[in-house]
């Protein structure tokens, strides 16, 4: 799966969580721009995990602040 496909699948998952309709770019931050609280993060991460059949551990989540980093992390996992 190439990065673009991972990107577009994550974009469709993020939609219901993006309550303010923020335009999403690689440097969009989850906490700042999207205002995700911890409950939203949990539901969002679970949705991504189920979509790609992967685990994004809390340790990995701590390193992911921006949208682009999430796409890279998921892309890295589905191609290993």
């Amino acid at each position, binding site marked *: 799966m190439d990065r673009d496909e991972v990107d577009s699948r994550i974009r469709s998952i993020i939609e219901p969580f993006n309550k303010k309709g923020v335009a999403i770019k690689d440097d969009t931050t989850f906490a700042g721009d999207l205002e995700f609280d911890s409950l939203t993060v*949990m539901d969002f991460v679970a949705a991504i995990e189920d979509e790609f059949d992967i*685990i994004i*551990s809390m340790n990995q989540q701590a390193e992911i602040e921006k949208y682009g980093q999430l796409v890279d992390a998921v892309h890295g996992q589905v191609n290993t």
Partner: protein
Amino acid sequence: MTEAIFQPDKPPVNEATSGDLFSKFDATIAMRENLLASGVEDPFSLVMEKVLSPTRAICNGRDTILLGTYNYMGMTFDPDVVAAGQKALADFGSGTTGSRVLNGTYQGHRECEDALREFYAMDHAMVFSTGYQANLGIISTIAGKGDYVVLDIDSHASIWDGCKMGDAEIVPFKHNDIEAMEKRLKRIPEGAGKLVVLEGVYSMLGDIAPLAEMVKVAKANGAMVLVDEAHSMGFIGENGRGVVEQAGVIDDVDFIIGTFSKSVGTVGGFCVSNHPKFEIMRLVCRPYVFTASLPPSVVATAATSIRKLMSAKAKREHLWKNSQRLHAGLTELGFTLGTDEPQSAIVAVIMPDLERGAAMWSALLTEGLYVNLARPPATPANMTLLRCSLCAEHSDEEVETILGMFERAGKLVGII
């Protein structure tokens, strides 16, 4: 989940601030000030001037019924328990001044561990200085780098902190969701060590975990299982061994964590296990090694209390009766509760919002009733809760009195 008021159980990340390092707490300071400005009695500076019994105290000058102390079995004033503590204090002194692995293991610590082994019918028991340290120590020690800890998202702070202190990969799943847990277990790379961490009773809503299914799924996926039974010991299960006993899976779990600060009625924590190599924990578990052991009086009261809890069938039955009556009475009055049926000795009353929750808490205190106020971010789904924990020593009349207090306070605040 926890007792904390302004702290989520899952540890927050404190962002760096320039200059005054305390600037990072400004939001919390403001939150507290806003709450107090609404005129409620300060929920964070309650002082019990006198404790009359497991169920009564003089709080801020008022005679108060205690309905938020987790003193489930009412052992704190048991004459045998108090006498054992007094004798140990006289015979062994006020403290051990040492680690369990150096000069801090007295006869009483051994006897306390013997009582636990007998209580749970397990091979090994290890006593920690607090329940928090038991979770912190066991989880951070047994799950190492490259291992995976799979845990319920509503876990207590001591579980989260044990995860944070260790080097394992941490994978939370939706509360009590068997399928979510199973999916995550199946995604863990082959060969990696797996620890599933569950609680018998979750203290926020007083709901229990579906342990029969969860433990089965965890074992089928090659995981070791740790269950925190802090809120069920002495009460749930035929012998008071917890939800694991009630669910019939006590022989399948690898570790049970518990505390002395609830049903046992003092302070301390423990882990019991049948793992053949368990005793090595005493040498490798840092929160066990690098702290002073419990005072002799504390382990003496704990051992006496644990032995009495083995045969406390009548108390268990009365506590169930109290829980059922309070649950039914509050439901009849029109309050919204955390569970449809009483599942434990915790009854959580869901408040419409923080303002009315705080006002209700304050009104109850004025009536002479103490409950726990739990609020976001410490609560699931950002709810404001009034958590009631019943005691086997609450009389039938006291439970009726409590219901009357809830009715008056609820009408005053406009919740019912």
